[in-house]
């Protein structure tokens, strides 16, 4: 069915089709509509979900953890300060290996206060043990959210699905929605590893472990993430077989014979595509690599793909404020370290707090990369 949906509407629509057992949520711009629209579905009896309105995002994630620990398929939605307030609980969901799935409308972090898109929120949570998926379009967000439920449950890892705030969350795009029943059948019932409320098999959840067992439990979690990527890919392949839309861990756009490519995540891939098309018309050998999966980090694929090019412009829609480079650049550089043939890596930070980013900006980055830009380590694109 072809529908016109904003990113938030599409995420709520995916949640309706997923029909989670529990949604516990607190509103925050720009993701508010996701749970607001979903709460209408609850009111209208279109889903079987128990909707829990809580007093903060910390409580929202706490309720989600309680719900998931009780064997329920559990979701919420948030952004920015909301995700930051969940921070403590994100690590607990990760350590307990609870497959909670959270759509995020990516937004900058205060201060100064700003409600617009960048990836500071999810990337600040990168070490919390959650899978992270970044989307270019509304339809990709919709598909990714449905896939994330299966991936999370298959890997016993919680998952964030990020669409850029306002740019995707509030802009209407054409999506081809799947059939409700087909989505529900594809997902099937949730089979938890354990259930706190199963009185026939009592367990202790979240024990105190000191020097004797903490590291060992963490090692099991690390292994869960280390072995997640093939499972993520299996789900993508299965999704493509069932619904006819295929996605990669990272996707190349016009990279054949390219000398310089841009590597980035999120909606700015659209602008960069246009820039690549324009420069290709002028005979310039440029391309784009879109990274869809940030956690688990597909470091082997990054190395295999990026070593084909002479120059790679790594575009970060966030900054680590580490006196050096952006968070994505760090991960990419680490993935490439030790490779026999290394591309030249350039660091670009762009679009913080929703700063306008256009195909012209993307073309400027690609042309600079092609010409072998010299000078500062990092280029702060578009800042006055």
């Amino acid at each position: 069915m072809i529908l016109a949906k904003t990113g938030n509407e599409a995420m709520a629509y995916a949640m309706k089709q997923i029909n989670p057992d529990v949604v516990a949520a607190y509103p925050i711009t720009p993701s508010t509509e996701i749970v607001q629209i979903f709460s209408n579905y609850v009111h209208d009896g279109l889903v079987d979900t128990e909707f829990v309105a809580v007093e903060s995002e910390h409580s929202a994630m706490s309720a989600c953890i309680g719900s998931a620990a009780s064997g329920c398929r559990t979701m919420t939605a948030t952004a920015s300060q909301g995700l930051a307030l969940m921070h403590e609980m994100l690590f607990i969901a990760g350590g307990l290996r609870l497959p909670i799935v959270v759509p995020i409308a990516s937004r900058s972090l205060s201060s100064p206060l700003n409600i617009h898109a960048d990836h500071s929120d999810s990337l600040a949570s990168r070490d919390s043990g959650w899978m992270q998926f970044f989307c270019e379009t509304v339809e990709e967000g919709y598909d990714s959210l449905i896939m994330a439920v299966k991936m999370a449950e298959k890997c016993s890892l919680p998952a964030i699905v990020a669409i850029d705030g306002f740019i995707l969350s509030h802009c209407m795009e054409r999506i081809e929605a799947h059939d409700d029943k087909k989505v529900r059948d594809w997902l099937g019932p949730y089979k938890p590893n354990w259930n706190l409320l199963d009185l026939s098999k009592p367990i202790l959840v979240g024990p105190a472990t000191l020097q004797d067992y903490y590291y060992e439990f963490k090692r099991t979690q690390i292994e869960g993430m280390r072995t997640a990527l093939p499972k993520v890919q299996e789900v993508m392949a299965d999704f493509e077989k069932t619904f006819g839309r295929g996605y990669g861990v990272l996707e190349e756009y016009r990279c054949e014979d390219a000398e310089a490519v841009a590597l980035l995540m999120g909606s700015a891939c659209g602008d960069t595509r246009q820039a690549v098309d324009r420069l290709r018309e002028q005979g310039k050998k440029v391309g784009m690599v879109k990274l869809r999966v940030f956690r688990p980090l597909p470091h082997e694929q990054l190395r295999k793909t990026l070593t084909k090019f002479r120059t790679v412009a790594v575009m970060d829609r966030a900054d680590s404020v580490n006196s050096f480079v952006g968070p994505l650049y760090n991960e990419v550089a680490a993935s490439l370290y030790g490779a026999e043939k290394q591309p030249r890596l350039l660091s670009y930070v762009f679009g913080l707090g929703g700063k306008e980013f256009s195909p012209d900006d993307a073309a400027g980055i690609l042309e600079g990369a092609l010409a072998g830009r010299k000078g500062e380590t990092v280029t702060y694109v578009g800042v006055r």
Partner: protein
Amino acid sequence: MADLKSWKELPCGAIIEDLNAVLDNKTGAWRSMRPIWSKEKCINCLVCWIYCPEASIKVEDGKMTGIDMDYCKGCGICAAVCPKKVHAIEMVKEEK
């Protein structure tokens, strides 16, 4: 410490499946305040049994029989929730 398990033997998620192992950890040793329960004053409303976070309120046939001092950490919740008019539990400083 040869009996400690390798990470490969641990369950998925920080859970403990063998609850007997939990009983070995006598958390009562942490106590600095001790609850003194008066059987005479107690009306067996069992509110303390509901609230005790350590399941240390001992009950038989619907009646309170005492407090399990092996696990009672002396948090005082039982004394706080005991109805004011009843006041069957008093917290006193733990003696050496």
